[in-house]
Every structure is written in C-alpha cells, then in structure tokens.
C-alpha cells in the first residue's frame, strides 16, 4: 500500500484510456503524455497500459508501506528518502520509504510507474480518471492527502534504463505538426498561413480537457454554419474570438466550433507536456507524413529500441 502524504496540484491514476465509447459521449481520457507512460511501464516489464500516477505541474509525496519497483518518467525528478533518483530508469523503493516526485520546468507532467501497476477498479476496461464526470481511476477524482493506493502483482522483475539517444528522439516538441481538419477550407489562405508563421502562448486555461492558446486570432467567417460534429483529440477549434483551443484527452466527444487543423498523433504526447506560458509554434504536414511520423514514434517504443542491450 502507498499512502499519499501530499498529492501535488493534480495527481490522477491514468493508463492508456478507454477509446470506443464516444457513441455514449464517453471520452477516452488516458495519460496526457502516453509516450512517457509507456516508457515507464516498459522499464519495469509492465504491460504498456498499466495504470500509473500522472502528476501535473507539481509532484507529490508518497509513503510506501510495501517495497516496490518504480520508474519515473516525463518531466520528472524524484527523491527517495531524501536522495535523488534518476528519471527514465527503474529503481527499488524499500518498505517504509518516502518518495517525493517533482515536475521539471521543462514540461507539465511526470509519471510514477510501479511494477504491477496501480490497482484501481476498471471502468470500461480502463483505470483512467475522467475528472469532469468523476468516472474511473481512484474514486473518479484527483488524489488527496491520506488516500491509500494499492499496487498490482508484478508480472516481471525487469529493471531497465532508457538509452539517451532514444530519449532525445522521443523528447516533447514545442513545434506541433498539424494536418487539415474538416473545416480547414472554411479559413482563408492568409489565416492558414498565419497559424504557422506566428507563435502562440499556452494560457493558464490549459488542462486535460483542452488548452486555450493566445496569439494571432483566426476567426472563422463561416462559424454560424457549423453543425455540431464528432471531434478528434488534438483538434484545433476556433471559437468566435479566433483564439485556438486544442482539444485534449478528457475532451468532449462532439463540438460545435469549426476546426482549422488537427495536431498529429505523434505530437499528442508533446501537448501533454505544455505548461501555461509556453511559447509554441505550428507546422503543416501532409496526412502521409503524419502517418509516417506516428509509425516512426511507435517503432521507437519497443524494448529493443528503448533499452541498451
């Protein structure tokens, strides 16, 4: 068992989410940075979608009443009984130890993965927390002081370390690549160009549902004709004011704003590491390039690529 001594700003249980229920309005949820979560799980020999703790902007403090193997990934640093431990490598936590996790300024989220995963009841096949509706995860909410977490039975005793060069290739980006979305042609050539020539700032209104940006406004002249339709994670919605919103993992399943673009699958993990105040840029790519980038990223997320032999 693990006792939460300090939960940090917003710490939730997340795995790779529960896609497949949008028909009932249910968001997939899941880790905001699935690359970091998958790496953490692979470091321990867990299934890639084992549930872990996702910490946001500030880390938490956890008392381990049992020994466990752990890995810290994402924008993370940690201390075990006061001594620094390295991120992106598996390590052992003895029974009775205090583990403190921190989130680096370089990103927004850190993951604490444990061999065997965090054990919470599964909802529609996933342990992920959806905060708005209070579904899934630990009682459907962010962790609080005094919460007690259970750890699953480990499948393996593996302990790995991620190769530095792979980490560089998987590093979160501040330039997000975009493809066209269903309403891209509702915007003028100038507006589509403006999106990639100007930089945008992430506002404080940035959470797991969506990130409001501030920069060159691109209002849609056609907004009134928009009929609510399904939306993909990473959709760049343009509300009447013209400032974009990136729809994110806890998203609504349908939306009524026109979408000028969609962040590519390979860059969604990077969105999960954006902090309020970050300056970001966009770049248009073709669908073929986007698919090639998704497959390249996937090919790196295997034990053979990640770990030094």
């Amino acid at each position, binding site marked *: 068992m693990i006792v939460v001594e300090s939960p940090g700003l917003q710490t939730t249980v997340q795995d790779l989410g529960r896609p497949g229920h949008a028909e009932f309005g249910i968001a997939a949820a899941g880790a905001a940075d699935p690359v970091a979560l998958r790496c953490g799980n692979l470091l321990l020999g867990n299934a890639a979608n084992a549930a872990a703790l996702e910490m946001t902007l500030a880390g938490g403090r956890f008392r381990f009443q049992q020994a466990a193997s752990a890995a810290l990934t994402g924008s993370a640093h940690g201390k075990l009984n006061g001594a620094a431990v390295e991120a992106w490598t598996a390590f052992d936590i003895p029974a009775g130890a205090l583990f403190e996790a921190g989130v680096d300024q370089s990103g927004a989220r850190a993951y604490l993965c444990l061999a065997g995963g965090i054990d919470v009841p599964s909802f529609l096949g996933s342990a992920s927390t959806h905060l708005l509706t209070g*579904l899934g995860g630990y009682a459907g909410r962010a962790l609080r002081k005094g919460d007690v977490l259970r750890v699953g039975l480990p499948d393996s005793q593996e302990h790995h370390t991620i190769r530095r060069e792979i980490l560089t290739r998987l590093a979160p980006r501040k330039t997000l690549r975009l*493809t066209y*979305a269903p309403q891209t042609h509702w915007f003028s050539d100038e507006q589509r160009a403006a999106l990639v020539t100007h930089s945008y700032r992430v506002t404080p209104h940035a959470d797991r549902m969506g990130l409001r940006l501030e920069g060159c406004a691109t209002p849609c002249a056609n907004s009134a004709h928009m009929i609510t339709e399904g939306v993909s994670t990473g959709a760049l919605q343009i509300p009447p004011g013209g400032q974009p919103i990136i729809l994110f993992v806890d998203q609504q399943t*349908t939306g009524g704003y026109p979408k000028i673009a969609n962040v590519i699958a390979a860059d969604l993990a990077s969105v999960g590491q954006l902090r309020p105040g970050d300056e970001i840029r966009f770049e248009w790519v073709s669908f073929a390039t986007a*698919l090639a980038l*998704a497959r390249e990223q996937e090919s790196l997320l295997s034990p053979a690529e990640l770990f030094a032999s």
Partner: protein
Amino acid sequence: MKTRIEPASDRSLLVTFSRQISIATHRKVAALTRSLARDTPANVTNVHPAYCTVLIEFDPIATDHATVQACLETRIARTSDSDSFDAALIEIPVHYGGEFGPDLEQLAHQRGLTPQQVVELHSAAEYTVYFVGFVPGFAYLGGLPPELESPRLPAPRPKVPPGSVGIAGAQTGVYPFATPGGWRLIGRTPLELFQPDRDPMSLVAIGDRVRFVVLEKPVR
C-alpha cells in the same frame, strides 16, 4: 447531397450525409453508428455520431485513411436506414420552473408565452435522440416545438446542476453532469441520465424517443 467521406485528422475520417439537420439524415447517422457498433471494422477505435455526420477514428499505426474509407463505403452501401431496431420510449419526469428552471420565465417572456404554455409545449412533444455526445449520457434531442426555440445564454454558466433540462436553438436536452453550459434551463429531472454501475449506463441511446412528463413535486 452525396455522402462525403474525408479525413478529419491523421487518425480519423468524417462521414457527412447531409448539411441539413433532419430526421432522414439522422436515420442514416443512426444506421451507420449501429452497424459499426454491431460489427466494428478492424482497427476502428472510436465512433462519434452527431447530427449529420459520423466521425470514425482508427489506429494510424495499423491502418490508413484509404483502407478505412473503402471499408466504410462498403458498409454504408450495405446499411439500410430503414433497418429495424428497438427505439425505446423513455419518459423523463421534469419539475419545471422555480429554482430548478431559472430561465423559464425569461424564455416564456421572450417567446410571448406564459411559463405554463412553455411547460405544456415542452412536455407535449415527442423527441428523437439525434445522438449522445459532449459528455456521457448527454442526448441531443430533436423535435422541439418551434415556438420554444431560443438562443443560448450570452455567457455560459460555469456549472450547470446535473439533471437540468435546457433549450438552445432548436435543441433540448438534459445535463447528466455538473458541466459548464449555455443552454437556457427550464426544469430539472431527478433521473440519473448516466450511471456507470447500471446496464445500460446511458439512459438514452441514439434513435430513442423521449417524452418529458410534468413532475409537480420539486426534485432533490
């Protein structure tokens, strides 16, 4: 118009049946949604029905737009929108007005009706669940009497109490969760629109019919 299939992202396709909200379009949306739920094509990960469209998400590692599009074209050609299905009739009790329907009086006034007339019109109509979206169990209902059509609030409420029954444009619906919302609230139901430990979790599904029944005693 001819059914259109186009990429909506690097991992989704949007099927558009029409640019007009209508029962005929809804039947096509519902038929494709049910067909995909019954027999989900390989590598399709999620299906988002709406008024005139169905968004189909797929795994971009395992497949691509052209493969999924070919599969959808076959499926649409094979699917008949007159396919029979069990459209349930769901009755939703509503306590109208007062603190549970804070916008009832103003909506009535703006439409030149009495609050009682709004309640009578709203509870006399039979609605169709065009789709469930936004949040779990939120049904977009078609069939609002035109006399009741009203614009959204100028500024959305940061938190709408769960069970609130609202009107926005030609739509009416019930908020299952405490979410932000800009619909005009005319009443509240004690029913749980979505319950994770119930089967089915969502009280309503695409294609169902809904009636609102006046509940005299206040809820909660």
